[in-house]
């Protein structure tokens, strides 16, 4: 009922004090935009980092040969522990909760040739389940290595995105031949482009994969370069790692507690670290933004104090005519809310505009895509609401406690 009166009075005041209103609203505008943009960019950067990190694989463990550091069953320390493909089969069979596992043979400088084009390339031998673990996805016309390739030791090859480009350009590569050290391999698949910021040995986009059985038969390797495995559930990674030490410890006679015997890179630990790091980072950004907004709120509160001061006479008149303290209070609270609300909406729109414009600058490879998620919006609105409430409350209470007799004497 009285809301209309409040609103019309608010706009009258707004018109009569244009510069002051503008500066006040600007403080809130800037604070809101800061909160939202900082949180949105923080989220975008985190998502980008996570995606790039997972480009190598999600929650995988990579295992390399190591050397023993504890004497065990009469065997001295510093003994090299290497593993064969047969060991990987045993691990797959004997370690509880082993999800997927694959050996990896690596030839760093194979000579690749297509027609007359020659190129040094990295060729790896692995099992079919290597691809899903490492987020290697075949494009629509392709497939990765399969069990039949393995069993028949086929000479088939799967190419990384960039390698395919270098060998075939924009032409279709499926079904064509790539000569690896003079031996022809048929291309069965090409990888979908992916972001990857972590690697061991090189980026997947520059690599090629053939069946491990083919690799072993052709190049006569006894030992694998490394093994990639993943627990069937991310919470079991630790127990699977323990199982690997036990099984291999029994086979190669080393102490299962001898961490040095195998070199493990557990990416889940890193993922956890990054998760915590980015949470802290975003809280930090959010706090900076929130303080910007709070400073804006202090500005609003100051202005409202001045407004109350200026309108003391008016408050006195209204009180004499029967306005209750509650009415005076709500008038100023609502006015503050409108000021902060206008600033907040403008800030929100500005942030939204910035966030929608950013992708057109092609910067997603560096900072990802900022995103105003629901949680960001809710967080910003909550901070804004609290700021509006607090900055309005004190001046409004002062106004409502005004003594009408003294106010009228002015």
């Amino acid at each position, binding site marked *: *009922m*009285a809301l*209309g*009166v409040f609103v019309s009075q608010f706009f*009258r005041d707004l018109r*009569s004090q244009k510069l002051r209103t503008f500066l006040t609203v600007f403080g809130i505008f800037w604070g809101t935009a800061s909160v939202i943009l900082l949180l949105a960019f923080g989220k975008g950067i985190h998502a980008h980092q996570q995606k790039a990190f997972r480009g190598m694989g999600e929650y995988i463990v990579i295992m390399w040969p190591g050397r023993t550091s504890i004497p065990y069953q009469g065997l001295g320390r510093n003994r090299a522990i290497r593993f064969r493909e047969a060991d990987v089969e045993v691990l797959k069979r004997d370690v509880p909760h082993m999800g997927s596992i694959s050996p990896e043979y690596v030839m760093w400088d194979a000579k690749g040739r297509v027609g007359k084009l020659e190129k040094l390339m990295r060729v790896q031998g692995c099992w079919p389940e290597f691809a899903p673990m490492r987020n290697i996805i075949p494009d629509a016309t392709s497939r990765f290595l399969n069990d039949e390739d393995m069993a028949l030791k086929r000479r088939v090859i799967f190419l990384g995105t960039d390698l395919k480009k270098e060998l075939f350009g924009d032409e279709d590569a499926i079904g064509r031949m790539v000569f690896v050290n003079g031996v022809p391999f048929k291309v069965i698949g090409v990888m979908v482009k992916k972001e990857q910021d972590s690697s061991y040995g090189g980026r997947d986009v520059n690599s090629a994969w053939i069946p491990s059985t083919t690799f072993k038969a052709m190049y006569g390797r006894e030992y694998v370069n490394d093994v990639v495995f993943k627990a069937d559930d991310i919470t079991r990674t630790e127990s699977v790692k323990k199982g690997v030490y036990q099984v291999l410890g029994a086979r190669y006679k080393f102490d299962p507690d001898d961490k040095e015997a195998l070199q493990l890179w557990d990416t889940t630990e890193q993922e956890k670290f990054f998760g915590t790091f980015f949470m802290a980072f975003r809280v930090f950004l959010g706090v900076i933004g929130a303080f910007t907004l709070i400073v804006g709120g202090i500005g609003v509160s100051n202005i409202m104090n001045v407004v109350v001061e200026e309108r003391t*006479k*008016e408050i*006195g*008149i*209204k*009180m*004499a*005519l*029967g*306005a*209750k*303290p*509650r*009415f005076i209070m709500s008038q100023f609270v609502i006015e503050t809310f409108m000021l902060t609300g206008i600033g907040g909406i403008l800030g929100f729109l500005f942030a939204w505009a910035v966030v929608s414009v950013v992708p057109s600058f092609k910067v997603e490879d560096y900072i990802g895509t900022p995103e105003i998620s629901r949680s960001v919006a809710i967080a910003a609105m909550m901070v804004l609401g609290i700021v509006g409430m607090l900055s309005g409350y004190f001046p409004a209470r002062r106004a409502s406690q005004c003594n*009408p*007799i003294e106010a*009228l004497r002015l």
Partner: protein
Amino acid sequence: MSSNGTMVKLSGVRKIYDTGKVKVEALRGIDLHVRRGEFMTLVGPSGSGKSTLMNILGCLDVPSEGTYEFDGQRVDRLPVSQLAEIRNRSIGFVFQNFNLLPYSTALENVELPLVFRGLGAKERRKRAAELLEKIGLGDRMEHKATELSGGQMQRVAIARALANNPPLLLADEPTGNLDSASGREIVDLFENLWKAGHTIMIITHDPNLPMRTERTIHLRDGRLEDGAAG
């Protein structure tokens, strides 16, 4: 409404201002009866406690001692929000300096008491327009207060005082800021309102005004001199 016809009954009212160092006794025991429908003036030199008495009568302030019965209800110990309600419904104020909201229109000014009463916008507008018509300002409704002459402003203020049709009108030097012609018009207006049944009390030091009213009481040094019991 009380049946005995008493509008205002002050008994032993004192008002003491305690500034910490000095105590100032502005009212030193006031007994006053005002009957419903009376038209009276309260006169006294400055410093006599007129304003203090007016504030207490208008429920803007409460006495330090003594009792105040307004329209049959004890009001001397009421909380601020209930006092506000009494001011809104039962008392119409007219001030020396008009006290209109300067940037609001005549209509909006008259609507104010109706806003505090919680009336809807349409009703408010209708009632305010009627009142402005009645006091002869029908053609000035959309004028800002600052665009009106002194006499017109005071008439708007009277219309505002009448908005909730209160039984008591309190006017504090209503002609003090007006030229004599406008002042006469205002007094005429009060007289008409009195004839229409309002209880009216004018506080003034204008010696000519008391001649127009039924009853005059004199305040000196915080005490009533005569005719107080009514």
